[in-house]
């Protein structure tokens, strides 16, 4: 796997949401790329949401469904003309169903440099527990 160190990043087109629920304002909606990994104590979710500020981010967890929703403020001056556009700008939205039971009071969210990092600690009883089998 030595060549993963020097590999060049490839372009991946932004994924548009296939069937978004009706929005009140028109605009494109994209699904952010995420990494989800799990340790013994918590589930960590890292999402790329460039251009989203903390005040425009909504994280919702109910009924085992986690919803990430980020709004983008337009940042171009009105007198700018497009010369070459290679990516579109739009809101971000993604939903996940969580299989583990999460301790909602201890969720930690951190948004910096356009990357959202969510730490979802598992409830105590979801940790694996060895069950002793007694003979007899």
């Amino acid at each position, binding site marked *: 796997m030595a060549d993963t160190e020097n590999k060049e990043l490839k372009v991946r087109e932004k994924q548009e949401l296939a069937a978004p629920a009706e929005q009140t304002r028109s605009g494109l909606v994209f699904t952010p790329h*995420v*990494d989800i990994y799990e340790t013994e104590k918590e589930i960590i979710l890292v999402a790329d949401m460039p*251009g989203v500020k903390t005040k425009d981010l909504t994280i919702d967890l109910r009924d085992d469904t986690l919803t990430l929703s980020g709004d983008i403020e337009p940042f171009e*001056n009105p007198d700018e003309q*497009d010369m*070459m556009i290679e990516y579109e700008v739009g809101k971000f939205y993604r939903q996940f169903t969580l299989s583990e039971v999460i301790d909602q009071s201890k969720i930690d969210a951190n948004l910096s440099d*356009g990357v959202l990092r969510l730490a979802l600690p598992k409830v105590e009883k979801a940790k694996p527990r060895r069950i002793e089998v007694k003979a007899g």
Partner: protein
Amino acid sequence: MIYRRMFGFPGWGVRSPFTELEQLRRQIGRMYDEYSGTPSLRGRAGVFPPVNVTENRENYYLRAELPGIRAADLDIQATGNTISLAGERKITGVEENARYHRREREAGKFSRVISLPDDIDTDQVKANMTDGILTVVVPKAEKAKPRQITVK
């Protein structure tokens, strides 16, 4: 028709047999774009990162989405009338015994050069990295700015 063009029929010169296919491919690609409703102003970027270039009277603006990259990992240079962006994206903060459920974000190096049509003022180029969006403001050189000509 391709046969005729390959042999330098007057006025056409020698063309690769693939140019017609290339044109056809582009036309079909444009038709697909119109059909699906996405704006066809979008070009297909071949190199990471996709960059949007816009301009107004005084400046060019280059924007790229680079989440998770800190200013220190970026190398931006302005030479002549080109801007080059290079850097590396690292994925950090993963613990040792983590099990991945999903892995969509990539890490690696990137490097790209953008050529601008007009002369630019390389001393005044400014770059700003906020919330994962890199904005490079490239002022046009004085002589390249459009001059308003009054009609008497």
